[in-house]
């Protein structure tokens, strides 16, 4: 029986041996040369290869970040008119200080080109904070075009975001922020110090009939351009201190006959000092700016056929101090930050919008993590009118309690 099975196996092996040999030969051939493809397939492969080459995988990168802020504010306003005080109380969820939703799209192409686009939804509707393309031309030279934040002072460009600011509101009296144009900027070494430059040419400022300035969307009416620049110096080796000086100048008439040759000159000084002094982090920031438009003939709001004039000069500034016990042993205490800010804003006396205004803020921030903050700010804004022609309250004093949550993602 055993011999019979053995013989049977031998017979089967002999029978399939030629087939196995043929199969092995075909396999070996397949390894030596790729199978031939027809012309249609070859054309398709070529097209795909070209497509892949154009796509440059790994060079283009899209990142969506952004920020949102929401909160609640309670107001208590005392209005003084002809010596009589009137008190009003109100509260709001969703004004300019209590709501913002701003996703930011960053599109990087290689290491030379970056597109930045930040639409924003707030109580004014949907707008755009910036939309610009930057070309990194040299190691410390960036050329930018589009719609961007003007390099004037330090607050608007670097410190205004809700998750960066130390109190719930913006300082009063800072000139307008964004415009269309081109910009060159960069940071440069200076021995053990550093300095930076930021220069732009933009569509320009426009003088309004009441003497205030607006800055954007002039379109074809923009006849003169505005030059803006800021120089920053970081004199200390640990980068803890930055001092900045800014200027903005340009024609503002834009074809309006009553403002012939009108121009605006704005100047600003700013300071930013951040130092860790165990167990605290000390943070001091400030900016002072002036706006000088000179004397022009403005429309009289009482009788629009008549003109009147005033010295169109505004001054504004703020100083802010905050302290955080970052080295505290307590996890709760180390996330607390205390802030105080004082601001002033004097608009032209004898204009229709003249006022001397002060702003005082006390704030407590609780940092949930490095980019998420819950803050409570109490603010007093006191505005004493220096206006002429129009009648109105002589003083408006508002106390506001802000409770705000802000996050950057």
């Amino acid at each position: 029986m055993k011999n019979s099975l053995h013989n049977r196996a031998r017979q089967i092996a002999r029978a399939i041996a030629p087939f196995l040999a043929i199969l092995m030969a075909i396999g070996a051939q397949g390894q030596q040369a790729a199978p031939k493809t027809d012309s249609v397939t070859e054309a398709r492969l070529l097209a795909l290869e070209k497509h892949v080459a154009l796509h440059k995988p790994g060079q283009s990168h899209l990142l969506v970040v952004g920020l949102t802020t929401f909160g609640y504010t309670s107001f208590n306003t005392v209005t003084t008119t002809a010596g009589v005080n009137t008190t009003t109380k109100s509260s709001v969820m969703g004004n300019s200080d209590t709501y913002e939703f701003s996703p930011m799209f960053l599109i990087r192409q290689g290491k030379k080109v970056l597109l930045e686009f930040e639409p924003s939804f707030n109580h004014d509707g949907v707008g755009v904070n910036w939309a610009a393309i930057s070309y990194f031309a040299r190691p410390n030279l960036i050329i930018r075009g589009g719609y961007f934040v003007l390099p004037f002072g330090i607050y608007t460009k670097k410190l205004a975001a809700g998750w960066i600011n130390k109190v719930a509101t913006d300082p009063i009296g800072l000139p307008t922020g964004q415009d269309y144009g081109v910009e060159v900027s960069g940071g440069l070494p200076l021995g053990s110090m550093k300095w930076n430059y930021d220069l732009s040419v933009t569509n320009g400022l426009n003088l309004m009939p009441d003497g205030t300035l607006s800055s954007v969307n002039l379109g074809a009416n923009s006849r003169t351009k505005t030059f803006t620049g800021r120089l920053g110096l970081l004199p200390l080796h640990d980068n803890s201190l930055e001092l900045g000086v800014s200027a903005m100048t340009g024609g503002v008439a834009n074809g309006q006959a009553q403002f012939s040759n009108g121009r605006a000159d704005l100047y600003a000084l700013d300071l930013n000092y951040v130092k860790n002094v165990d167990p605290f982090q000390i943070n001091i920031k400030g900016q002072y700016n002036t706006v000088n438009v000179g004397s022009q003939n403005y429309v009289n709001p009482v009788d629009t056929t008549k003109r009147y004039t005033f010295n169109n000069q505004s001054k504004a500034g703020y100083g802010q101090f905050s302290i955080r016990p970052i080295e505290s042993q307590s996890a709760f205490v180390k996330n607390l930050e205390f802030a105080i800010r004082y601001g002033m804003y004097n608009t032209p006396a004898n204009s229709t919008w003249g006022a001397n205004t002060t702003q005082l803020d006390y704030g407590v921030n609780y940092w949930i993590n490095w980019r998420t903050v819950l803050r409570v700010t109490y603010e007093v804004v006191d505005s004493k009118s220096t206006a002429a022609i129009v009648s109105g309250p002589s003083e408006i004093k508002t106390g506001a309690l802000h409770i705000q949550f802000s996050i950057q993602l």
Partner: protein
Amino acid sequence: MKKILANKMGFIVTAGFAAVMALSIASCVASQSVAAKSGAQLWAENCQHCHNTPSPGSFSGDQWETIGMHMQTRALITEDERNKIVSFLQQTAR
């Protein structure tokens, strides 16, 4: 002479500034302090200038590259600083 200088002061300051800027851009030499500092030190010093220092694990390596370019346009750090900070963050990124 004084009057001429006073009249031309704006031009002199502007020209001087332009010359210093052009020389600085052309030279592109890292400052001694930047060259001596680690990425971690530059990250701590520069980021906290405006906001809290970010956690390296908040973004991926590719994302830090993009954020580094964005921050260079915003904070005007030098390219050497950006490269060192991004390298440090990428080493410890998620």
